[in-house]
Structure formats: structure tokens, C-alpha cells
């Protein structure tokens, strides 16, 4: 399997970025890029498992918006009882994680037990969660109580040893994910199912349960991402998380995971996520092209990264 393609693309981007703007490699900018990548990145790690096992989840973006909305509502409602403090933050986090796992299990149940196409199930739930958050917010914006927000803020902006929390959580997710994918039975089973479901079944792999687990895990990671997202702006609306699902899927594929399943690598996904957010960052930092063309530049680089991967594969 090719290793070089996405790495080369990322290195080229870093060189270009540095050449165009001296601030590109500054600690502040690097922190910005990494912290922003964290939401999509954490979700994309989960997506890597789903895709490797031959599945797909289009609902993650609207799921994130819904969970963020729910979390804000619950925390605002609990405010008079719990007051501002650690307990209410923990409550919010628990709500996010549980809602994520539940949403993932629901997707997984419909896909595995009822045997409905993943594309259809998650397209459906994508619409459902998007509508639910619009409804919860009355078409407007759900905002976390101002005092609560100030208290919760360090979860996005604070950190340990100068590294902000989203980056730390992202890194931990990646490490655990990479070990699970390449060294654990779970990862091996996912790849086997994605490679050939019948062979996996005949080899005593519990196909349905493994698939269900991938969706539940993705749901949980959406919850984790939401826990990091809410303190940033303290709000959720119908426009939260729009197109996150496509960015996450794109990152997974750029990273070398095969869209039809059977092979996945988590570290590749990380490279994919970084490529995507670095393109945005570089375009904002420079005046090279008309902002109208940002999407086109992104598209070209995504396709190039995948072509590089193909070329490297052909050479062995």
C-alpha cells in the first residue's frame, strides 16, 4: 500500500504555506490549524473504521449539530439546579457522549439488523438530525448561558503545557484508533468484513455486531467532537456542522483508506484532515487567488493527493 502520496501532498502544502507567509509556521497558527482540525479529525477517525468495515455514515455533521443543540439545552436547563461548576460541565459531556452513542447505535441497528443500505439510513438520519436541531432552535441559534460559556471556554481554548485541549484529545483519539486498527482484533475484523463479508461470516467473525460497534464508536466520537466544539462559540444552529460528513469522508479517502472497505489506516486519515484544513488556512493567509476559487483549489488538491497515492501504488 502506498504511504507516500498523502505525506508528499502535506509536505508540499507546508513548504508552499511557509514560502507564502512567514507566520505560517508560527506556534499560534499551527495551534489554530490543529485545533480546528480536531472536530473533523476526531470524527474522521471513527469514520475510518466505518468505511473500513464497508459502511458509510453521512449523518455525522447534522448529528454533531443536534448533539450540540441538545447539550446546550440540557446545560441551560440544569443551570438553576446545578449552578456554574464542574458538575454541570460533566453533565453536558455525559449528555453528548450518550446521545452520540445512541445515535450511532440507531444508525447501526437499522443498517445491520434490518439490513437497510447504509447510504439510505444515514442520508435519512442526516435530514432528521438537521431538522431536529433547527426545530430545537426555532430556526435560530441555541446559545449557552453566557456565564456557563465563560466557565466552559477553557475546554477549547485552554490546555496542558501550551497545547490546547482539542489537540490533545485529537492526538489521543488518533493513537488509540491507530492501535485498534492495526494491532487489535477489532481492526482486523473490520478489515475482514469490508474485504469480504461472507468470508468473515464463515470465519466466525460476528459481522453484525462488529459493524454495529463501528457506528456506535463513530457516534461516540461525534459526541467527543461536540464536547470540544460547544465551548468555542457557545452556540449551535442549523448551520453547525454542515458538510462535516463530506469533509470527514474525504479526509479518510485522501489518507488511503479504501472507500469500498477492506483496508483502512488511521494515521492516513490524520494526514487527510490536516491537508484539508491547511488548504483553507493557506488560502486565507495569502492573496494568491480570488476567494471565489477557494473551492476549486481544494478540489484540485484533494484529487491530486489521491492520484499521487494511486501512482505510488502502481509502482509498488
Amino acid at each position, binding site marked *: 500500500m502506498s504511504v507516500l502520496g498523502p505525506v508528499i501532498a502535506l509536505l508540499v502544502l507546508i513548504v508552499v504555506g511557509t514560502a507564502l507567509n512567514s507566520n505560517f509556521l508560527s506556534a499560534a497558527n499551527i495551534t489554530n490549524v490543529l485545533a480546528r482540525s480536531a472536530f473533523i479529525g476526531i470524527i474522521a477517525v471513527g469514520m475510518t473504521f466505518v468505511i473500513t468495515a464497508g459502511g458509510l455514515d453521512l449523518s455525522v455533521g447534522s448529528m454533531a449539530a443536534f448533539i450540540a443543540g441538545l447539550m446546550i439545552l440540557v446545560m441551560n436547563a440544569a443551570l438553576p439546579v446545578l449552578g456554574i461548576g464542574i458538575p454541570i460541565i460533566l453533565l453536558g459531556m455525559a449528555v453528548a457522549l450518550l446521545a452520540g452513542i445512541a445515535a450511532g447505535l440507531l444508525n447501526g441497528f437499522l443498517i445491520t439488523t434490518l439490513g437497510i443500505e447504509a447510504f439510505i439510513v444515514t442520508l435519512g438520519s442526516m435530514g432528521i438530525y438537521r431538522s431536529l436541531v433547527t426545530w430545537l432552535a426555532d430556526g435560530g441559534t441555541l446559545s449557552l448561558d453566557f456565564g456557563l460559556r465563560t466557565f466552559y471556554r477553557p475546554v477549547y481554548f485552554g490546555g496542558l503545557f501550551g497545547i490546547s485541549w482539542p489537540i490533545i484529545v485529537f492526538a489521543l483519539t488518533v493513537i488509540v484508533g491507530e*492501535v485498534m486498527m492495526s*494491532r*487489535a*482484533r*477489532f481492526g*482486523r*475484523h473490520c*478489515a*475482514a468484513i469490508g*474485504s*469480504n463479508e*461472507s*468470508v*468473515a*461470516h*464463515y*470465519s*466466525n*467473525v*460476528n459481522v453484525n455486531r462488529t459493524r454495529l460497534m463501528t457506528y456506535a464508536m463513530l457516534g461516540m466520537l461525534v459526541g467527543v467532537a461536540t464536547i470540544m466544539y460547544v465551548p468555542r462559540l457557545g452556540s449551535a444552529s442549523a448551520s453547525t456542522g454542515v458538510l462535516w460528513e463530506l469533509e470527514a469522508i474525504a479526509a479518510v479517502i485522501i489518507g488511503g483508506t479504501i472507500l469500498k472497505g*477492506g*483496508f483502512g489506516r488511521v494515521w492516513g486519515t490524520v494526514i487527510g484532515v490536516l491537508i484539508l484544513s491547511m488548504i483553507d488556512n493557506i488560502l486565507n493567509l495569502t492573496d494568491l487567488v480570488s476567494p471565489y476559487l477557494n473551492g476549486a483549489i481544494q478540489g484540485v488538491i484533494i484529487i491530486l493527493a489521491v492520484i499521487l497515492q494511486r501512482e505510488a501504488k502502481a509502482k509498488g
Partner: protein
Amino acid sequence: MNPPSVLALRQVTKSFGPVEVLHGVTLDLRAGAVLALIGENGAGKSTTMKILAGIEAPSSGQILLDGKEVSFGSLHDAEEAGIVMIHQEFNLAEQLTVEQNIFLGRELRKGWLLDKARMRRLTREYLARIDCHIDPDTPVAKLTNSDKQMVEIAKALSRDARVLVMDEPTAVLTGSETRILFEQVRALREQGTAILFTSHKLGEVAEIADTVTVLRDGTLVHDGPARDITEDEMATAMVGRDVSDLFPDKPAQAPEGEVLLRVEGLSVPGRAQDISFDLHRGEILGIAGLIGSGRTEAMEGLCGLRACSSTRIEIGGKPVSITRPGDALERGLCYLTEDRKLRGLLLDKGMRENLTLQALHKYGRVLIDTAAEERALDRAIGEFDIRAGSRTIAVGNLSGGNQQKLLLAKVMQSEPVILIVDEPTRGIDIGTKQQIYAFLRKLAAEGHGIVVISSEMQEVIGLSDRVMVMRSGRIAKTLSGDEITEDTIVRHAMGVGAGSTERVA
């Protein structure tokens, strides 16, 4: 006087990278003659056929068409020249109907629209010529393997082939289907078609071929009229050593000791009813029957691979309930599938991942100990004589025989007490067959119980201590000792005579 050569190879070599796999092959396909190309898996048969059919280009040497040198740029060029190849892995679009497949790529038209009526009529005609009565509107996915083979042949007929290249056409056919195929082959021969086919069934070769050409390790080792060579000589030429004792010796007395497995009233809805039998320690029990007689389904049901019901199942004297494959494995009951490519092996993965997939729990609770996996692979390669170019090669690139040996190694990872093997030697060469037979007998002698499902009569007879014949989802008869003859098995499998009173379902 030989008829003229239609398509010929002259000193053809083929290299993949630095490795030369064909060393100067010369052969002639003549109009109105059948050439059987035989050899062990990996001997170069497939490559030779692909060069003839324009799928691969030779590295050196010439291809002569009607005596003139040609080079086929593609499969399409070869088809234009009247050369049609029928692949062992069928080249059919599963979701399309029989008719759509037969006319795929050269649909008949009436003006702008498809002339469906004419295509359907012609399809019926072609199918009738090979005595195959399937509806032209059936999707290919719903057909059995043998019907698919017939559709491939009908497709070749529709193309008025001058040269027909068939890669193991009989591997998935039953005896009667093979006879129909051979009648058709003879008819084509009468019409002057040049035919090349490969087979591992040497009896068939002797029956139908005019010329026998033997390849061993990419070199042509024999080429002559079929009447001048016996089956034994063919096998010896292929393997390069004497293989007259293909089957290991059976114990003088069928083992009748401890009952390892007792099955009572096993039913798989719509496939098999009321299957009851005992399997003894040290015994090889053969299951014979036509394709579709419910053999595979019954055994898959027994092993928890598909839904089934039963009155009672005992393993080692204890009643057990098996609803998932894991239940069966925990009790030492293991099934080796008949379809190694679609159900047995992950073709895009390496040998290590495949070997340990079914018993991954042995290599670590959560994290996998890859070093231990590598050691297991070393042992398996040694024990089963698996020959692969490299350890990391995707198993889809291994020859059929090596895939089958790897599959056997894989199920042995589960350390079964009772092993059920389904068509253990389908489509593999005679040398590997001999190794697998010896291995199964050795397992039985060590105290395992073995069930062998097979459509190859020789295999069932040569290997089994007892034979259970199935027909239409039921056990027609269980034979032992001297009763095990081809004649008796066929009679029970077809439901004719043999003094039995069982009703024809």
C-alpha cells in the same frame, strides 16, 4: 493427415518481471480437433490460454493464425478473429439476465431500439442446442454454477467461434451436465471448430480429447495423440513422479468406536430435511449427491452458518445447541467451505491475516501478537507445503492448490475435533490432491472425525470409510464397505432402483 492448424503458438515465452513462467511453448489448435491442455496448478496453463485468447501478450515467440503471424492487441481483437475464451471464473454480469449476457456488447437492434424479441428467440435456440432449459429472462445471479457454465457456452455459440478455449469447463458440473457439455463439444468439433480445454479430471481428457498436451513448470513435456497415452501416464507426466496411489490406504475395518458427533433430525428450511447420522472417532464419512441435493446447506446449518432446526445434536456424547459459528468452533466442530474464493479467503489480504482470521482470539485478547502470527504462518507453510512467491503476496495471486492448502491451514488453526470439508479438492492439481487426501487420512488416524462432501465420485469412493448419499434434501442411503461403488452411489443420488423404497421427492 492432420487437419490444418487454425491457431498456433511457436516457441512462446512469457515473463512476469524477472520470472519466466512459460519456456518456449509450441502447440497447434486444429480445425475439428479437441486439444486437452493439462498440468498442475501453476504449470502455465492459464497463461498459455490467456496468450491464445489475446488477454496477455507473449514476451517472445509467435502466434500464428491460419499460418500467418498475428499479434492481438486485446481480447476484442481475438474475438474478432473468432477466438472465444470461457473463463473458469465466469465472465458474466450477475445482475443482467441470461439473454442480456449472451448479447452483451453486441446487442441486436431494430432501428434505434433493441430487438428484444429476436435476441430472446436466439437465446432460446442457443440454450436448446446445449439442452439447457433456463428462462432467458432469469438474472444470472440466480443461476447455479452449472447453468452459468451453460450460459457461457451458449454465449460462445452465439459468437460463431472458430476457436473455443475453455478453462476447466467441467470443474463445477455434475456428471450428467458434463455429458451434455461433451455432446456439444463433439458437435462443435464436427462443425470444424478448434477446441482447447483444460481439466484436472483425466478420465474426461481420455474421453474427449484428440490431442493431449502436458505442461510442467512452464515447459511442454508431452504433446501427442490422446490414444497413445494412458491416464496414469498423463498424471506421471504432469507431476513428474508416480501418483498411481492417489488415495491413502483405508483402515481394514471401518472405525466403529466412540461416536464423536450424533445428529438427529436436522432440517434446513427448504434445503434439507430430517438428516440424522453418526460420525465415529477416526472415521472419514463421505457425503455424495448431486449439486443442489442439500449437502452443503445441511452441513452449514449444522455448523451454525445458516438457520436450521434439529431434534438432537451431540458432540462427544454431550447434547449441544449450535446457533452461531462460534458455538460450533468452541465444541471443536469446524467447516471448510466449498467456495474458497468467495467464502474462504480474503483475496486482497496476505497469508498471515487469512491464516489467523478464524482463530484470532488465540493471538491476543485485544491486541494481536503479530510475531506469534508469523510463527504460525511459518509452521503452516511447512506443514501444508504452501508455495507462495512471497509471504506478503495477496492470496488472490496464489494458485488454486496453494489457496486450498492455506484454507485448510486456516481451519486447522481452530484445532477442530470434527472437521467437515466441502469439495476439498475442487479445481486443484493432482499432486496437491494427493497431499490433501493424505492429510485428511492422517487426521482421522489421529482420532479426529472427518466429513467429506464431494461431487467427485473417485474422491468419495477412494477416501471414505462410509458414504452417505443425499438426494433432494434427504439422506437416500448410507453405504459402507463393499457397497461403496460408483454404480450404487449414482443410483441412490439419482433416485433410481437399488431396491430402495424411498419416495422420490
